[in-house]
């Protein structure tokens, strides 16, 4: 199928998205309900045409159609077929089409699974989603058309950026997008509720699973990005507080707050305005994140486009979506005040603090990310804000949050009686502190104040999250998916904190020169360079080193780091040699030749680094388990027993 058909399909998709928003929003007005029957067909139609548009671009890549400018800029006949598919979202135009496709998938899922909801309300929700889709489709058609032709056709393409030729590439952006584009769903629900003027706990129950699923994907997407940066960028870092990383992390923080706020709204009918605001905030951060990456406003390793007209369009879009929803909020949110009270120490108050701290963290990161831009706008100079700012400023709200979490997850609604868990918690914090001092001393030889605090926090959260499931299991009670999910997610967080603390405190990194036959030590490990040789890959040539790694005299593994030169783009690229392990990674990356057969190398010892990503995956798993809870699926009448138990320490 030629790309002109794809282009045409996209135009049709745009028209259908407009129809969707008109039918949806106008159809919710009094007297116009006959329009509502057109909404779901419009959603379905839009979905079909977006898929067709995407498919036509995919085919152009597979068939090496270099008469399409986007294909010529991002692919090459030597590029393996798998990457020819992933290259679709390797640059600006294709990424946006992917964004639109993901939104279309979410929209059609919402259309399909809301048959039991009040029709007018669903109509509004789909109408709002239609507006967002229409905006993006228009943006792509007007400023970022992936279907533009290149005539005469190039003989061969410029190849996909070698940094992106990696399996994680195939998964990271779609995961990420499924996540933060998915926040459009709670956003649409929030706007619909504001338009309707009422919000009951059933609304919260409906929104929660959608938000949790989106959050889950975002968690995995961010973790994948971090992991990919770790082994692909060659230098062992896993988080750089880069504007693009921040762009995906801020929605995650807001989304986490949203999930917890939704719990309060569902269970107690409280925090309605918080929840509405958080839903708007999370999606707004997703949109702002898109703006940061797509308009070249901040330049970073990932920045694709630096075309001002694109940025203008997105700004206009942001004003309409965010400004519009926040204005609606300013106008309507007073209606949602609630009168129920709660004690100073209660689940509600812990979750209120949770909201505040997470929003504070997200806001501080936002300030640091946007500050250079503000200064530039005011002609006050060009600066950059270094990673230590973000690290410090993130820890300030997050450390207290972790300690509060260990206690708060056991607090009951309305008035927390923590007597039953007080002893357990105290024992656990004591054990955590002890472990925090002993384990690093024994394994790594030193302790510091920060490492002890971080380790204690992670360990305590981990242990604390076990209390609920273990005690219920031992008492013979059934464990609801909701409670299990919560426990698993918090456990994952504990694992993550352990990993991040230990790696930060105890990683060892050394740059040095090695000649074949030479050995060096790093910590308990010895590294011996055997030789270097030339290697030919499908679309690159490389020098490969053979490094034998031993620990305390015994051989552990042989690593083969490479220095690749991709033939088309002629950028040199480092492919690190990594020996993974649950308790440590050993990392070898080649630098440059130093003459006489010597090469510079960067060697790293990264203890517990895998805990970072394992922790994130466990968090996402917790989210998944939570979503499978029965109360989200069928309207099953619950026993009074179950209802009572959930009311005390429900999730």
């Amino acid at each position, binding site marked *: 199928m030629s790309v002109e058909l794809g282009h045409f399909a996209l135009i049709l998709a745009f028209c259908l998205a407009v129809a969707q928003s008109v039918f949806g929003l106008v159809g919710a007005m009094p007297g116009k309900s006959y329009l509502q029957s057109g909404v779901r067909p419009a959603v379905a139609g839009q979905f079909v045409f977006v898929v067709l548009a995407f498919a036509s671009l995919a085919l152009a890549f597979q068939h090496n159609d270099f008469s399409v400018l986007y294909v010529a800029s991002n692919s090459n006949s030597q590029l393996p077929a798998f990457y020819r598919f992933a290259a679709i979202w390797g640059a600006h135009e294709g990424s946006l089409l992917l964004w639109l496709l993901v939104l279309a998938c979410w929209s059609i899922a919402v259309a399909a699974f809301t048959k039991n909801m009040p029709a007018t309300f669903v109509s509004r929700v789909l109408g709002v989603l239609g507006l967002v889709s229409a905006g993006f489709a228009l943006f792509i058609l007007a400023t970022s058309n992936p279907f533009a032709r290149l005539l005469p056709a190039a003989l061969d393409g410029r190849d996909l950026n070698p940094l992106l030729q990696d399996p994680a590439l195939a998964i990271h952006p779609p995961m990420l997008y499924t996540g933060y584009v998915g926040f459009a769903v709670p956003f649409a629900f929030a706007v619909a509720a504001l338009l309707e003027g009422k919000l009951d706990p059933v609304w919260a129950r409906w929104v929660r699973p959608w938000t949790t699923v989106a959050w889950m994907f975002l968690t995995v997407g961010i973790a994948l990005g971090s992991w990919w940066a770790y082994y692909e960028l060659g230098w062992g870092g896993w988080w750089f507080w880069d504007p693009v990383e921040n762009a995906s992390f801020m929605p995650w923080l807001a989304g986490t707050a949203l999930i917890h706020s939704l719990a309060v709204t569902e269970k107690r009918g409280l925090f309605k305005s918080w929840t509405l605001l958080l839903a708007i905030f999370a999606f707004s951060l997703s949109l702002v994140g898109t703006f940061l990456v797509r308009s070249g406003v901040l330049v970073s390793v990932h920045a694709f486009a630096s075309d001002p007209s694109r940025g203008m369009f997105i700004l206009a879009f942001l004003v309409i979506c965010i400004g519009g929803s926040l204005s609606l909020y300013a106008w309507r949110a007073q209606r949602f005040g609630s009168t129920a009270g709660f004690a100073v120490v209660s689940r509600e108050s812990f979750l209120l603090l949770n909201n505040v701290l997470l929003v504070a963290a997200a806001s501080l990161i936002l300030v640091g990310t946007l500050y250079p831009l503000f200064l530039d706008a005011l002609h006050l100079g060009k600066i*950059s*804000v270094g990673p230590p700012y973000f690290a410090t400023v993130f820890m300030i709200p997050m450390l207290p949050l972790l300690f509060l979490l260990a206690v708060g997850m056991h607090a009951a609604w309305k008035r927390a009686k923590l007597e039953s868990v007080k002893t357990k918690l105290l024992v656990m914090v004591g054990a955590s502190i002890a472990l925090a001092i002993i384990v690093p001393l024994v394994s790594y030889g030193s302790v510091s104040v920060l490492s002890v605090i971080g380790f204690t926090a992670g360990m305590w959260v981990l242990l604390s999250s076990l209390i609920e499931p273990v005690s219920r299991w031992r008492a013979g009670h059934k464990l609801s998916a909701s409670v299990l999910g919560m426990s698993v997610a918090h456990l994952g967080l504990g694992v993550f904190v352990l990993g991040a603390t230990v790696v930060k405190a105890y990683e060892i990194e050394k740059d*040095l*020169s090695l000649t074949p036959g030479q050995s060096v030590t790093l910590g308990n490990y010895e590294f011996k360079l055997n030789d270097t040789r030339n290697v030919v890959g499908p679309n690159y040539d490389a020098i490969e080193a053979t490094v034998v790694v031993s620990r305390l005299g015994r051989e552990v593994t042989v690593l083969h780091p490479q220095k690749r030169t991709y033939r088309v783009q002629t*950028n040199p*690229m480092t492919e690190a040699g990594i020996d993974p392990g649950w308790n440590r990674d050993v990392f070898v990356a080649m630098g440059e030749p*130093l*003459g*006489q057969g010597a090469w510079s190398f*960067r060697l790293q010892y990264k203890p517990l680094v895998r805990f970072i990503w394992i922790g994130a995956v466990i968090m996402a798993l917790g989210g998944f388990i939570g979503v499978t809870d029965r109360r989200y699926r069928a309207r099953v009448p619950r026993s009074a027993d179950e209802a009572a138990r959930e009311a005390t320490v429900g999730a």
Partner: protein
Amino acid sequence: MTPRRRRMMFVALIVLGVAGATTLALSAFRDNVLYFYSPSDVTAGKVPAGRTFRVGGMVDKGSVMREPGSLEVKFIVTDFAHDVTVKYSGVLPDLFREGQGVIARGRLVDPQGHVFVADEVLAKHDEKYMPPEVAESLKKTHEAQRASRAST
């Protein structure tokens, strides 16, 4: 303690906490804002003493010198008006090349001899791309040079 007193203590604690946190945040901010200076700025003495900052320009052709067998490397960063010698110990990024734009982060160890010790060298972008700050400052010094030549 009466409930009222308890609540007030609570509030006071929170206010204290927020005040402390804000101070920490502000100082973290101040300490990590990195300014960018051109080699001309550096040689003119415009850089505050002892601070970490970023300097950028073009890597002067033929100026990259390596200590044989070690990771010590020395190169000259220029904006075609003045030069700064940069010393770095470590692996240079893949895109680092003579005749290309570069940004180094570190501090000035020898203000008189204009020697800068870098703890990070950035040459991130596309080979053909020059960081905007570098291009802008190169342009400014060119204009200044031409102006001074014209007035002599």
